[in-house]
């Protein structure tokens, strides 16, 4: 099993005719994802990468039965794309776009409250259920079907974790990047709830980083109601306060959001905390033995 997406997921790509959209749609198709439509306003009626292009997400839902979306549109138009997808009835919206202004996301999240859908990202590598479906930009081939769930705020660091567990003989049920921005869709806790109900997920890796309090909240949830082993690594133990470490969300401000506080909260919740990023795979092994 897997969470949120599987072999039945039907994907529409918003911004399919752009450079990034084209490149990654091809990669998703090669992986075996069922891409049923693309959306580029003004290019409706054409075909791109053997996929019909529509003017709106609503058309793609009506004509092709799309139920998930991958967003590759430029930052200033991305929040509109998210809201359009939600309004069209898309259940799983994956927004890859990086650099969306915070107030745009505040507005989009308010809009999403009334809708029955989940948003992954923005500024995320996406979500993959190995062997079934990939919506995003992660390298598919490093993943293996298996029983470890992965939730992460970063991209390449997630690949590192995937690679470590794969090399130790474990696969992944689903790996999700929640995104590096201050305001994102699904959070650690939302995804932990999905993994809790997924019979085939035996353990979860939670990769956090400095900034915000999402890791502390996740720790609180794990302590109270998450029955499976959790392994965690927090990036940014050496990060100086007040500096934005690449991700808009990765900043220690007002003395809050340090790696130390997060690691402490997780340890107190019974999470296996890896101090070094090289130990993530081994910690999973220890936790499962």
């Amino acid at each position, binding site marked *: 099993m897997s969470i949120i997406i599987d072999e039945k997921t039907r994907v529409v790509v918003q911004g399919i005719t752009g450079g990034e959209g084209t490149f*990654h749609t091809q*990669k998703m198709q090669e992986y075996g994802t069922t891409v049923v439509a693309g959306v580029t306003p003004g290019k409706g009626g054409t075909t791109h990468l053997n996929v019909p292009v529509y003017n709106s997400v609503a058309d793609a839902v009506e004509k092709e039965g799309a139920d998930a979306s991958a967003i590759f549109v430029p*930052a*200033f138009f991305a929040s509109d794309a998210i809201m359009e997808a939600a309004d069209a009835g898309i259940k799983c919206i994956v927004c890859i776009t990086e*650099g*969306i*202004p*915070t*107030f*745009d*996301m*505040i*507005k989009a*999240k*308010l809009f999403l409250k009334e809708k029955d859908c989940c948003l992954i990202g923005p500024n995320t*590598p996406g979500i993959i259920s190995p062997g079934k479906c990939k919506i995003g*930009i*992660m*390298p598919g*081939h*490093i993943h293996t079907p298996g029983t470890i769930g992965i939730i*992460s*705020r*970063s*991209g*390449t*660091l997630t*690949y*590192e974790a995937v*690679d470590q567990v794969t090399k130790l003989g474990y696969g992944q049920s689903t790996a999700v990047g929640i995104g*590096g921005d*201050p*305001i994102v869709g699904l959070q650690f806790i939302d995804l932990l709830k999905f993994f809790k109900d997924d019979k085939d997920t035996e353990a979860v890796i939670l990769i956090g*980083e*400095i900034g*915000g*309090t*999402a890791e502390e*909240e996740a720790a609180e949830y794990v302590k109270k109601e998450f029955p499976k082993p959790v392994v965690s*690594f927090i*990036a*940014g*133990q*050496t*990060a*100086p306060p007040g*500096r*934005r*470490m*690449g*991700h*808009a*969300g*990765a900043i220690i401000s*007002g*003395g809050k959001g340090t*790696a130390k506080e997060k690691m402490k909260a997780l340890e107190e919740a019974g999470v296996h905390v890896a101090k*070094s*990023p*090289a130990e993530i795979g081994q910690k999973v092994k220890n936790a499962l033995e």
Partner: protein
Amino acid sequence: MKIHEYQAKQILSKYDVQIPRGEVADNPSRAREIADKIGPRVVLKAQVHAGGRGKGGGIKLAKNPQETEKIAKEMIGMTLVTPQTGPKGKLVKRILVEEALDIARELYIGIVIDRAKETPVVMASSEGGVEIEKVAAETPELIFKEYINPATGFLPFQARNLAFKLCLEGDTFKQGVKFLISLYKAFRATDASLAEINPLLITEQGNVLALDAKMNFDDNALLRHPDIKEMRDLDEEDPLEVEASSFNLNYIKLDGNVGCMVNGAGLAMATMDIIMHSGGMPANFLDVGGGVSEEAVKNAFKIFVSDKDVKAALVNIFGGIVRCDLVANGIVKAAKEFGLKVPMVVRLEGTNVELGKKILKESGLSFYSAETMKEAAEKVVPLAKQ
């Protein structure tokens, strides 16, 4: 992005936020002219991107224009060291000359984005003029908060709630409410990430003014605000960081001596961490982007070459969509162009990794190679100490 106090006050006054009369000066005679106009008593405030200026001698009172000129002479060109500047301090290029006001009360107002609640929050406290972090940690009950409903914005009753909590009365109450609403308007209209008034001044006459003002802005929204983008003061930033940002690299200079070049912000932070766990200290954070273009690798090399603190370097690339052989070619090309001035440990992983390693090995350049992050860190730390 950060701006100076005088710039923040310029922006705020456009939104009818009350500020003291004053002007900015970059030489002593200009400071004297301003004092002639608004004085005789004025306050001189050093304009640098750091708090705690008063403690370092960056805020001074002058009783008359002559004294203003004298103090301005000392202050402009001085290196101001405050608890926030670090030991190197910051060069003062400009001062803000403002009318000196009688202080009855010093309050605090701050607006930030609350990430957990996903909306801005307006905070107010009667404990102004001090470090608000200390108040928040020790007496959190003294900080009052109103969360914004993004659909309606900051509502008048919320502003009144805060003004009552601050014990404002009569005309001062009215001014306080107006101040709060204007400040939120400025925050929202400029895509700010922080607007902080500490202290908010209540004068003996009962007037409400922003004695100090600090504003930071959402970098992702700056294209919508060309006027604010222009306020960026490159002199306040590390020259290497300025250069890196012109190449679209995420780079932050740090105190150690191990240069890092990594693709992806999370992996870059993790690489810094593992260097520390291996007994070293990173000289920088450098994210060349998940995609690692050849251009980015080249520019990262340029920065390594110009940073004298870098004694050894660690390149950690996880090739996902980008193939390791392309990355390896980029590294070899850059190393040939700029020279390998310091020992460099390269760790490649991911797609076509074997081919990538072969390219490095056959390049004729003396890279140190490593299989894992851990091995890479353990190799580079002793090299940096040699």
